[in-house]
């Protein structure tokens, strides 16, 4: 419900690392199987709701002389996803959307691509639809036209995948980001540390800003699928406090462990926060060249005819260069 404890987020969308691995492997394998069977990975939903692979079935003995495009491995899929998750943050920032919207959109994106491979559904379009639907869910209405205009995309491309996305999310639309918990903790710290003087309040404010920055990074990791928002927020505060040194965080954490209704002890809580922060540290920055290379592979998997066209074009342009050099002579 609108309380995390009884929410679909709590019941269905906090997953252990093993489950994440299995889901991703499952989606990846399905896409590869489609590639072998139909020669392309992209999936289209038919009017009757069934899925169709637009590629023609390949004969038993395989296409003669034609080589199938090379499929993405799971790690490559994850890298592409991370790239588009960053894009979500950029687009939301460019629109000056409230933080809540990007957190919701990123979680939608992550959840969708647990059930589907990026080879099956175009991650760029899904990303845009994720942002658009989060705006609706968070009661921050932007028309498809305005949105399309802002990102210089056809609004229809954004709308086209709406139902597919809703279904991929299992219609579980209420999600909890760490940002509101974060504000709650700051508010609570003011009371706990009896913050009265301006200087200390100012410090807490800086701590909050720094923690929001950490939370943004957390949202790009699997931590967002593995830990409840309260723990993400605490982890962000803990990490930010290392630099800011605003509060005696350890003391505060002990008090939280004492006050909360759940059974998490101080040590268990500390262990959770550490594993959250490990996720952040293990994240390597997304390398543009890697993305370009994988994206090219992705395009060919989704639509192998592009590969042929590309070859033709290459041949043509070589031909042209030759001719023009001949002309020049």
């Amino acid at each position, binding site marked *: *419900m*609108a*309380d*995390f*404890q*009884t*929410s*679909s987020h709590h019941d269905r969308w906090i997953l252990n690392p093993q489950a994440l691995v299995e889901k991703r492997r499952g989606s990846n394998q399905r896409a590869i199987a489609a590639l072998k069977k139909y020669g392309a990975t992209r999936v289209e*939903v*038919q*009017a*009757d*709701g069934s899925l169709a692979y637009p590629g023609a079935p390949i004969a038993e003995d395989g296409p003669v002389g034609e080589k199938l495009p090379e499929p993405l491995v799971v790690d490559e899929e994850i890298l592409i996803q991370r790239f588009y998750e960053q894009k979500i943050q950029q687009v939301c920032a*460019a*629109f*000056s*959307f*409230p933080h*809540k*919207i990007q957190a919701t959109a990123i979680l939608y994106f992550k959840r969708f691509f647990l059930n589907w491979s990026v080879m099956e559904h175009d991650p760029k379009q899904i990303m845009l639809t994720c942002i*658009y*639907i989060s705006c*609706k*869910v*968070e*009661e*921050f*209405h*932007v*028309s*498809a*036209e*305005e949105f399309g*205009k*802002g990102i210089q995309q056809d609004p229809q491309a*954004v*709308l086209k995948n*709406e*139902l597919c996305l*809703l*279904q991929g999310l299992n*219609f*579980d*639309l*209420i999600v909890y980001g760490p940002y*509101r*918990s974060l*504000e*709650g*903790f700051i*508010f*609570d710290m003011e009371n706990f540390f009896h913050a009265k003087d301006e200087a200390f309040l100012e410090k807490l404010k800086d701590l909050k800003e720094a923690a929001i920055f950490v939370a943004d990074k957390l949202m790009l990791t699997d931590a967002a699928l593995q830990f*409840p928002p*309260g*723990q993400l927020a605490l982890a962000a505060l803990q990490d930010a406090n290392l630099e800011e040194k605003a509060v005696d965080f350890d003391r505060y954490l002990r008090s*939280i462990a004492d*006050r909360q*209704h759940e059974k*998490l002890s101080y040590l268990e*809580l500390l262990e959770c926060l550490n594993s959250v922060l490990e996720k952040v540290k293990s994240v390597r920055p997304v390398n543009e060249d890697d993305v370009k290379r994988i994206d090219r592979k992705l395009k060919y998997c989704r639509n192998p005819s592009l590969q042929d066209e590309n070859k033709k074009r290459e041949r043509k342009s070589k031909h042209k260069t030759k001719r023009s050099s001949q002309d020049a002579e």
Partner: protein
Amino acid sequence: MVDASTRSRPAWLQQYELVGKIGEGTYGLVFLARSKLPSNKGVHIAIKKFKQSKEGDGVSPTAIREIMLLRECDHENVVKLVNVHINHADMSLYLAFDYAEHDLYEIIRHHREKLSISINTYTVKSLLWQILNGLNYLHSNWIIHRDLKPSNILVMGDGDEQGVVKIGDFGLARIYQAPLKPLGDNGVVVTIWYRAPELLLGAKHYTTAVDMWAVGCIFAELLTLKPLFQGIEDKSTHNPLQLDQLDKIFKVLGHPTPDKWPTLNNLPFWQTSRQRMQGPKNEISVLHQVVQTSQKSPAYDLLSKMLEYDPCKRISAAQALEHEYFRCEPVPGRNALVPIQPNDKVVGYPQRPVDFSADFECSGSQPPQMVTSSHAVNNSAAASVTAPRPMPQQIPLVSMQRLPPYGLAGQAGMPGLTANNLSVPRGPSQPPHQQQFRRLN
């Protein structure tokens, strides 16, 4: 020959045997169907079909709200969303609910027009208690319904859950925990007869108290079989100030004073309404005469606490459930329709009219007024659904500020989407902070 429409039928349709159409609204249509699944074979299901929004914005925000809230709700007195289906052919959504045979609009009407006798005390009390019980669940989970009215209060017919109340139609409901926008921003929504005075006077923030006002109005209507405040809606204006509605309220409850309602002077339309309302300003309430109930009775005490002017002082759902009214005889029961007293007469309520000529798909694309068949049109309400009523309409629920269409070509960047018109100050609204800790795990 295979008909093209049959061929593209969604596979999930086979789960249901269509009975007919039971309602329609601006969002789309409502069907009655029987489940064919072995797990609940023969069980009646109400299926609400949402068309794509007219503005070219895909799935309507109403459908999104209903899905997102009801996917999370689990309470005996809140309508149960059993399933969501998609028809890719016309990009429509179908929401399947447990079917409720009755609603308070029909029950009250049946007593008023057919039986000419009041609803017995046990039934009134049981209905009211269950409404409050459902509402208490919603409010404690940070949801404001915002559109409570008799037609949205459903009552289950024959079966295991006979006489159990289900609050329905969450198309206007909101989570108020973390509003990005002030809740008043999307246009005033509660149907005018059940609309709280603070909203009529221009209050910007909805609180759970608006739902309690509506419950008070419904309570009075259960007692008298007549809407308590039947104002005539001024549709000429998008302004929430509805003078006739205020006038109707003031005539029954007396004019409010800043003395009894301290924040009255802060409400945007208070001064205007004072100037524009002619005649003497009586402060005396005649509510007890209108509902013909002794001022000393627990029923009157509870009713007057629900119809308290000051939203801060208005009774909450949780408090109301503890009220003496529910502790004195007859005590409320789960089956509101069948009194436990052997000498009380059991009233048989009519079944919801069904338009058997309707079809799941093809009628979906027709505009609502196109339906011509039979009796079903005027008085069809549906499970969890409000059919249009011959009563004041609500103001459009999402009053979007439509920007002029852009010439798409050649305009770079994001004009019109600057911080000024999109970003919103974070509301100061903090939930009670113990709530934060419940999120830890």
